[in-house]
């Protein structure tokens, strides 16, 4: 019984780094995608926040503060996603505007 409890505690503790790493990886990927859609130009606020939060999440993970790392990485992920969608929206609306302008004599 005691062994089982110990094992459960160990497993529960071991989940921290795993989940934090996974969210950090997701945030990293989302940020790369956002950058690819020119988020630095079209959604600078969100892209900067995502970048800073991701860096801080990595730092917190390095200090083994996994719950803080995960919370920051989650926010980084959210901001990166918002940045990506905002950037692609702005780009497409700009492109539409430009083609409309070009068609006008």
């Amino acid at each position, binding site marked *: 019984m005691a062994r089982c409890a110990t094992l459960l505690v160990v497993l529960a503790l071991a989940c921290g780094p795993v989940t934090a790493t996974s969210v950090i990886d997701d945030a990293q990927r989302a940020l790369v995608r956002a950058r690819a859609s020119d988020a630095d130009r079209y959604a*600078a*606020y*969100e892209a*900067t*926040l995502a970048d*800073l*939060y991701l860096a*801080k999440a990595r730092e917190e993970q390095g200090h083994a*503060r996994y719950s*803080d790392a995960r919370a920051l990485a989650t926010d980084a992920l959210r901001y990166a996603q918002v940045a990506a969608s905002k950037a692609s929206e702005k780009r497409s609306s700009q492109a539409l505007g*430009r*083609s409309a*302008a*070009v068609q*006008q*004599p």
Partner: protein
Amino acid sequence: MKRALLASSCVVLACASGPDVRKRADAVAADVRSARELKAETCAPRELATAEANLRFARLALDQGDARRANAHLSTAEPAAREAEAKSRDCGKTVVAAKAPDPVRAALTVSTTDSDGDGVPDVDDLCPDVPGSAERRGCPLLTDRDLDGVADDIDRCPDLPGPKENFGCPWPDRDGDRVADKDDRCPDEPGSVENHGCPRRTALIVVRRDRIELKQQIHFQPNRAVILSDSYDVLRQVAQAIKDVPGAIRIEGHTDNVGKRSENLKLSQSRAEAVREYLVREGVEARQLVAVGFGPKRPIASNSTKAGRTLNRRVEFRMEEKK
């Protein structure tokens, strides 16, 4: 003793610095708020984001009991917040200047920017990043050689008319039937528009309740159980029909009465089996098919005429009755 004193004074200082850092954080938070109110998210997005993020990091460090680190973050957040505020204030001014009641002054303020340097100020320039004449409102003169409505500079096929969805290129049409591959259900076989680009196929079989009736007989090499290629179409249709039928099918081979009876029996059996094999190759389940050779036992016409004998040499498909 001295060491103990030093350590305790350090602890006291560290404890005392906590509330001070919190006060400093509150001050930075106020700066961030005011920058935000001035629309810093649009005017100074990077500065605002830096300030906000570092403020959050400072608070996090405080919660972790690390006042030194919190202070370091606030040292980054503080100037960023101020810069955001300052930039936003300027940014706001430009907007106000553009909306000022004095039209001459407003026009002068705005006309200072001309990103593409074409002499048309950005505010009047429909193409602010591409130089163009004032007559065309700052847009370049664009040609459209293929007259497809997609200007040549963005037309990937400037000499071939094509829709703008395909960047000015015509949709590919491999079989040349004038039905674009994207709409063509048979992109490698020419067909009509009405038939979605597929050729019209006449039905070579009729599926009855008890049998599959063939409109064209299956042809074999003389005296051999080798199916001729002109029968492949009909067999393919038979295969499709059998796949749609749940029950078993009996493939019956029949011959005329020319030659030895035993040989005819053997030939009809082999031909029925050849048909069965073909259908299995076409995807019909083998257990659904039974091949039976009847030889000359079941004629449907007189064997005394050539036409009658031709009719008697045949393959039939019968639905097996459920037991």
